[in-house]
């Protein structure tokens, strides 16, 4: 499970996250919703330390991530090597896919296992092939990203994240950049993962999809979790006035 306690983050004088406390249980799917600029993507990026944070603690299965208390009561970043090991327990998928353009789909997927986890080349390749098959891209193994549609690229990106066998999958608005007719194929891949014991945190504006796949939805406003609950609670009986307003606007 993931435990987040007192997470705070500011960009200069702008407080983006103010005191985030939340737990994500094993196998839980948690959706983060809120207005743009509310801090939901920053929260997601803090979890795998693409963003440093100013205070607070993140634990994964009890293990504190990213910072250690220093001798002089100031915290220190964990050494790079340790941070890399921690990152390997999580996968992230970005809005813009961000595949490596100079590598084939297979090379993109096998890269992490091959060089981060030092898996033998043949084994990494087998893993890559099976993951690409899993996201329905067996026939695109040797294709470069430039020759794939957005939906296909995003499915490769999901396979790439899964290749590390992560405990947590972080999904940052993964269908926002896609043409409407390509959204379904990416959502299907996520649906197919629901039977796995993997935690997922997804930042999304697709409320229908969040309702379908998430166990809980957290509504973030002004850097805080303003309301959290089951999809039914959040989407049908919202109590926070800004959430009511947000839902009205987005529908």
């Amino acid at each position, binding site marked *: 499970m993931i435990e987040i306690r007192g997470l705070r983050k500011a960009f200069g004088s702008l407080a983006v996250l103010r005191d985030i406390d939340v737990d994500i249980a094993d196998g839980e799917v948690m959706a983060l919703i809120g207005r743009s600029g509310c801090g939901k993507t920053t929260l997601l990026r803090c979890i795998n330390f693409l963003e440093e944070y100013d205070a607070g603690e993140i634990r994964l299965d009890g293990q504190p991530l990213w910072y250690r208390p220093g001798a002089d009561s100031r915290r220190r970043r964990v050494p790079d090597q340790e941070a890399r090991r921690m990152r390997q327990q*999580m996968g992230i998928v970005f809005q813009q896919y961000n595949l490596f*353009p100079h590598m084939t789909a297979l090379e993109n997927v096998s890269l992490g296992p091959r060089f981060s986890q030092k898996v033998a080349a043949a084994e990494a390749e087998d893993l890559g092939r099976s993951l690409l098959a899993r996201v329905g891209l067996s026939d695109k193994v040797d294709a470069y990203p430039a020759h794939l549609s957005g939906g296909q690229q995003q499915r490769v990106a999901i396979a790439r994240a899964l290749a590390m066998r992560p405990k947590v999958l972080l999904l940052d608005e993964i269908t926002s950049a896609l043409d409407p007719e390509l959204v379904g194929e990416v959502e299907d891949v996520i649906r197919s993962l629901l039977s796995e014991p993997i935690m997922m945190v997804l930042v999304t504006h697709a409320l229908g999809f969040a309702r379908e796949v998430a166990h809980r939805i957290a509504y973030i406003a002004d850097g805080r979790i303003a309301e959290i609950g089951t999809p039914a609670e959040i989407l049908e009986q919202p109590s926070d006035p800004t959430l009511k307003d947000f839902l009205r606007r987005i529908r």
Partner: protein
Amino acid sequence: MDTPTFLLLLKGAGVSLLLALAAIACGTLLATALAALAFSRLALVRTFYRLYIYLIRGTPLLVLALLIFYALPALDLRTGPYLAGALVLTLYVGALFAEVFRGAVLAIPRPQWESARSLGLPPLAMLRKVIGPLVVRYALPPYVNVCVMTVKASSVLSIISVWELTFAAREIIERTLAVFTVLGIAAGIYFVICFGLDRVGRRVEHHLMLKGFVGEHV
């Protein structure tokens, strides 16, 4: 122009090409090291990088060539004009290449770094598999540009008595007074070399494009 004269020019062109290629090869190595300094965590190291670039880029190659040509013997290093010439050219294009590489690193979209980091790639693998290939792709057009410039810049070395194409041309002109014919042919030879380099650059670019980089084939 008779055949022996033309062959003499070609011989000069060979020296020019050799000097340029040596400077390109050594300059590329130098620039790789320099560009690494540009991204050092230590401010002092970054300052050294900037100083080197300002100094070299802010000095005419001609002045630099004379300076080093006269400075080396003063330092008791008797290198002769060819080694001195190659050294000057290397120092000069090294600075230009370094800026090309630095620009290429800066051009790598931040999400590419983040993707590599999120996979927990160790630094060496990240450099070899992700950053390096992207730098090559982004650097290639301006790199070829500097290569072509290097060939032409090598003509400056005639001033420190390096016998190359321009030197040979002047020698022949003094003998024959056929100013326009000789200079015209020399210019033509320079053009052919530069054109050839450009073609090689385009071939490599095209090859990289087949390997997944999008871009227009020009």
